[in-house]
């Protein structure tokens, strides 16, 4: 269970990440790793540093110190564009899709297929619609019409499309930022299904939330963060849902688990 040992199939490893904003110490030496085809629940109370950690990973912030290793190579992620190049895709709750644009246009945004009319390149709208629908169908997402405007769809459908898009474009690491906090129970279940489908297709997933019940069903492992430090990594088999919830709220690791986690002890 200790992070330092599974080097064989590590997709991502963040070592001793510090991030200071002036005198505010948002991250104080966090080690975080994700294996291949693993769903990691990144948990923590509001202000614990989850979002900062992810923004460091996706290039919105650069770390004050620390190292990021992606697919065995040390990388320097200084822009969201760089993160995308590496194959890291983030699905933000409000930032996933453009509401006034159609599903197909959203799906292909930034990498639209084109047809050539002499020297002129125009988007191939028919191909865009057909392929987007097929790709989403492939992940199990049924849409009525790829030319429908996203604005008329529910939050869960939008998340699903964003996930399907990441799968289609062969991303390696999918980051879901509080994807289900505004969704109904049924929709949450669907989003979790698609998350699982993404894993089945070889992706790793970081699932950020402060609510353990949303992610317990699909996550393989939980990383809990509190006040800029990591409380620990726990595989699903060794902790109960209640214990994780207590840790997230109190920031204290129960007696039973402490022996196994040297980092938490040295606090």
């Amino acid at each position, binding site marked *: 269970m200790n992070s330092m040992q599974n080097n064989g199939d590590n997709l991502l490893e963040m070592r001793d990440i510090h991030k200071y904003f002036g005198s505010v110490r948002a991250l104080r030496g966090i080690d975080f790793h994700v294996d291949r085809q693993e769903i990691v629940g990144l948990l923590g109370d509001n202000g614990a540093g989850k979002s900062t950690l992810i923004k460091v990973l996706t290039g919105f912030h650069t770390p004050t110190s620390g190292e990021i290793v992606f697919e065995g190579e040390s990388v320097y992620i200084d822009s969201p564009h760089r993160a995308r190049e590496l194959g890291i895709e983030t699905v933000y709750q409000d930032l996933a899709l453009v509401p006034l644009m159609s599903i197909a246009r959203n799906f292909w*945004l930034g990498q639209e297929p084109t047809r050539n009319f002499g020297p002129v390149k*125009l988007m191939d709208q028919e191909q865009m619609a057909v392929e987007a629908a097929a790709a989403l169908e492939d992940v199990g997402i049924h849409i009525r019409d790829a030319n429908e405007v996203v604005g008329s769809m529910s939050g869960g459908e939008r998340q699903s499309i964003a996930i399907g898009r990441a799968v289609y474009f062969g991303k390696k690491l999918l980051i879901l930022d509080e994807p289900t906090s505004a969704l109904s129970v049924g929709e949450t279940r669907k989003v979790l299904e698609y998350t699982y489908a993404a894993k089945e297709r070889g992706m790793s997933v970081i699932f950020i939330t402060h609510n353990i019940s949303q992610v317990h069903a699909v996550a393989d492992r939980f990383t809990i963060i509190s006040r800029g430090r990591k409380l620990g990594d726990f595989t699903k088999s060794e902790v109960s849902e209640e214990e994780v919830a207590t840790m997230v709220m109190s920031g204290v690791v129960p007696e039973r688990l402490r022996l196994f986690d040297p980092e938490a002890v040295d606090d």
Partner: protein
Amino acid sequence: MLAFFEENAEASTGVQLARIYMVLLGLGALLVAEQVLAGWIALGERINVLRSDINFIEWVVSLAFLLLAAAALRAAWSLWRRDRAGWPWSQWVSFFSTIIGAVFLMKALLPGGIAQISNLVAPPLDTLIFAIGALLFVSGLLCYRFVTRGVQVFDEKVDKAQGALSTAASDMTPGQFISLQLAQSPSAGAIIGFVFIFLVFSFVTDLFLQPTSVGSVLTNVSTKGIVAIGVTILMISGEFDLSVGSMLGAVSVFYMFFLTEGIPQIGLGPMPMLLAMPAALVVAMLLGFINGIILVRTGIPSFIVTLGTLLIYRTIPLVAIPGGRILRYRDYYDEFPQLWISPWVLTLLALAGLVAIAYVAWRTLPGLWRGQQFRYGEIHNAANDGHFKTTQTLISGVILLVTALALLIIAVWLLMVISFHLGRGGELVQVGFFDLINGRWGFSFEQVTGGLFSIFIPPGANFRNSIIWWLLLVLLFQVVLTQSRYGNSVFAVGGNPGAARAQGINVNRVKVMNFMLVALLVGVTSILEVTRNPGVDPLKGDGWELEVIAMTVIGGALLSGGYGSVIGTLLGALIVGMLATGLVIIGMNARLFRGVVGAITILAVVLNTLVRRQST
């Protein structure tokens, strides 16, 4: 009505009535068409005419009634034969008879306005027109209500979305079909407003459809319309530009100086006229770049940035032209510049045109032909139940024929131009440079094409080349906005900058590019304005920014970004132009213009919002 077709029930009284109504309507419409063609019903302007002189409006109206008659008889035929096509046919026929009736009522009820004062009209047959209108309107409405009863209403969101694609258009009632089409268009308010204002002005005064008025509307609005294209695209990406008017003044002065005295302070002499143009465009893009870069680097809202540059850019012409007078080209030279074009250049241009025509033909005609073949085959496909298949085949055939003929005519004309210029044997063609850029129609065309292309423009009508540039630019940027990858990123940047950034789009770059695009179009406009009436007014473009934003907003663009269309802005510009000219024609105080434009702006946006809310 539904039961009559679906369950093969006995024809009810209603169906019997509908059958009879369609027959009567068909015959009635034929009668009206005949009366108009024979001159017994006079429409439009009739000056010292024989009864057999049919004017344009009467041609249009009689054609409309002939089509209505044909459709009504077609519907009646299907209703008697009990084939299912009778249903959509009767829906559409009653729909259009209601519309035509409403238009006639409008014509009869609106005051004649200045038309009577100017003594140009035959005594109006208002009672006859009123009677025809009322009859068509009431009977059409009743029939429409009956025919569409029982059709499930597409008012649920889900149904509406499906209706767009999975349901064939003929399964919707005309009302549903039209409202769905409007709801899917960004410029519903502009379309409705355009039709309404156009009809009102053409009914209230016969002067409105005269070439002089049409020319005045188009020419006045074309330059503002070009700026509005850029402002629309910028607004879609979530920003706007208040500095366009000042920029126009500044770039005009630069262009004028480039053409005449240069800028001695920096050691720049006068430029050749062909170089002055790109130089002015570069200056314009620089000004736009300044706008964009301030916005992106400081993060100040574009309102503030461009308000600042509005004031700054205006000082350029005010300072550069001493005394605030109007600087004229004639102050420097007695003669306007002339171009001597080698016929070989024109021949080459014509050859390039031929290649383009051949390419277009190669890309479009085979597809149209296949579509026509397919539709022809579908006529006898029983599964379709006869739903408009014959009509669609007919229409697609006409489109195919017209496209082919148009391409052929242009190609033949280009060949004629080539042979004409080859026949001249190297003699240079002389064209007034300003005429070429923004001359009046009638002069410039003939000079370039050697008289092979001339259209009759009545004296006094002011059509200028800027209209052509405007329409070409609208077409170009409509394609860029809706069909290109760049256009897609513009919508994304305005609709949700975060999502655009997350998909790897450089949001700031798109915004700066759009500011430069606006500036480029302002540069084009400056050149057109300077060459129109060769000279510069230091206050040129003062107040344009708001008028242009009004055009854009009437056209359906959202101030908050992410939504809008160039075609909508074209309509918005036409609405503003029609008001400017129309209010003067009907003898209203011209000072009302701004107020009316303001009211129309609010109304159009309210309409747009209502239609959009209905759709999502």
